[in-house]
């Protein structure tokens, strides 16, 4: 009997290979080989020629050029990192908040859900670029003044209300760039709200009932029940948000990589893209290490 059982398991395993075979062929051709090639490019001086690319080994020169000589790369890198650092927590907190609200029962909930998921279908495309003020491909009108997004400069209003005018230009500038964007972070929360919503619906009824019997307030319920059950999804959302911000083709590093690619400097652009990717991996790794200690797993 055990021998028959083994053969059944083995047979099933073979079927498993069958199911992933199509993907594996594709991944080999469209992912694994290109990844290795582009890694190789980053150590080479690549010039396009008819029928092929002419490759010359130059060692670390591309990386040196990206970090030492290139005037913009390091600055762009820090700006993207900084932006991600302050936006990610806000996006996470905000989408958890929205998810909790639209998980409650109230009139017009379906409509509210439809509106909150609307960014999912718009925010990745060129429409989003246009409504945030990026009118032209030739770069003549890149300023925020053409943005048609809802804007309210709450900090300035507040400061004026209190009666402080221009107490520190730099600080005011930082604050106002943050707050003018803050409302429009709603536009980056679609997927995260969906993920949190599904996590919220996974909270078992027994936990809710126990909390109700013990007389937990909504506040206590949030900290002791909701947060615990949602914590695995916080990790998922953190990683998703970071990846999404980092790989967004409209962020400055990606724009630079692309424009260098358009100038046929494949080696340099590959070196930039790879060092950028390495940084993303390190950031994600750190977050994994920290979050794994805090997360609560049911069962």
């Amino acid at each position, binding site marked *: 009997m055990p021998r028959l059982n083994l053969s059944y398991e083995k047979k099933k395993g073979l079927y498993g290979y069958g199911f992933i075979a199509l993907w594996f062929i594709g991944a080999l051709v469209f*992912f694994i080989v290109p990844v290795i090639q582009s890694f190789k490019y980053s150590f080479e001086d690549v010039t396009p020629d008819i029928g092929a690319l002419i490759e010359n080994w130059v060692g670390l020169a591309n990386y040196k050029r990206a970090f030492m000589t290139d005037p913009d790369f390091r600055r762009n890198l820090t700006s993207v990192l900084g932006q991600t650092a302050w936006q990610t927590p806000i996006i996470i907190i905000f989408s958890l908040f929205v998810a909790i609200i639209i998980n409650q029962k109230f009139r017009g909930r379906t409509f509210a859900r439809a509106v909150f998921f609307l960014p999912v279908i718009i925010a990745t495309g060129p429409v989003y670029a246009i409504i945030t003020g990026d009118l*032209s491909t030739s770069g003549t009108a890149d300023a925020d003044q053409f943005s048609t997004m809802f804007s309210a400069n709450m900090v300035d209003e507040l400061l004026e209300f209190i009666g402080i005018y221009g107490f520190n230009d730099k600080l005011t500038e930082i604050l106002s760039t943050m707050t003018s964007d803050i409302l429009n972070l709603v536009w980056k929360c679609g997927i995260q709200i969906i993920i949190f919503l599904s996590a919220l619906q996974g909270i078992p009824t027994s936990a809710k009932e126990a909390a109700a019997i013990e007389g937990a307030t909504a506040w206590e319920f949030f900290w002791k029940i909701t947060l615990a059950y949602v914590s695995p999804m916080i990790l998922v959302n953190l990683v998703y948000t970071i990846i999404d911000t980092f790989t967004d083709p409209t962020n400055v590093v990606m724009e630079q990589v692309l424009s260098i690619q358009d100038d046929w400097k494949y080696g340099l652009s590959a070196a930039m893209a790879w060092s950028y990717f390495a940084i993303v991996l390190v950031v994600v790794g750190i977050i994994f290490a920290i979050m794994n200690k805090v997360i609560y797993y049911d069962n």
Partner: protein
Amino acid sequence: MEEQAVQTKKNPVLGLISGLLAKYKAEKPPKEPKRSRKEERERFKKRLATLTPAEQKYLKRKQFIDAVWPVCRALLVFGLCFVIIYPLLYMITAAFRTRSDMNDPTIIWLTRHFTTSNIKDAIKTMDFWHTLGNTLFINIGCSLVQVLTCALTGYGFGRFKFKGKNILFGVVILMILMPAQIILIPQYMFFRYFNPLWIYHAVTGNYINLIDTAFTMYMPALTANGIRAGLFIFLFRQSFMSLPKELEDAAYLDGCSPMRTFVSVMVPNAGSTFLTVFLLSVVWYWNDYYVSTSFFTNNSTIALQLKNLDASLTRIIFNNGNVKVNARELIVWMEAGCLLSITPILLMYIFLQKYFTEGIARSGLTGM
């Protein structure tokens, strides 16, 4: 009945209790009479008086929050919805105004000169109907194909044990993490100098140029490597893993092959995941201009046309810059283009949103 009788003999008290219980169960609970608000309040006060101070505090607080929270919530939801809808409303009003309206500070929402000429210009510039057909062909077709292939792959990863599974799944994770920009040039070279079975060049001395053809989109989709395929495989894996194992075993016992099991047992049970993935896939293909810029030189998708709308406007409508249009005035044409390009997908969303918004919460996402 006999058992009860025996019990009654043995222990009269227990018999009495069980008899009472049976009587109580038989009686229907009395219906609560309707009370006015005033009575309700007095009842609440009476009840409060019998409770401990801590309980009183809790109940009072709960009553207060129950009264205040819906109002706050309504305001919050309304405000946030407004923030999201605002640019769309503006898009609709701006698309139907003349360019001079943009310089008129008294016009914020409603135009005084209603016109459809922007829309017409945008349709002409974007070659809209032709482009729409082309985009639908690429994006709906690729999405359908990709959903099927990703589902197969996800099922393979979710329900089978085989050697090297973890390493291969690591590749899927890497596909999610890796920005598409890194691997674009090798992919471009692959399509530009396409060499079927790696012997075509050796035999004929030529390459096949696939750039500007739909093959560049279909081939990755067909092998579950299209736009954001890693994420979709991941979603399918989670969703299939969360289905009970008994489903599968029953099908195997009835003599179904794994493929048959997948089609007739697993797929119907993962309907909401299929819908979610299909919608996201359509949307991401529709919105993509990044991958398609690399593989198409003539702008044949909606997203690409919109991305290059200002350049094409200058060429076609403004007669190579003979008509001077400043950036603020350009907005009316751009918004008209935006409106055109989101309308099809918005319509699809409106039709499917009920299933999407209610079904997504039940999809495989929870199993992550």
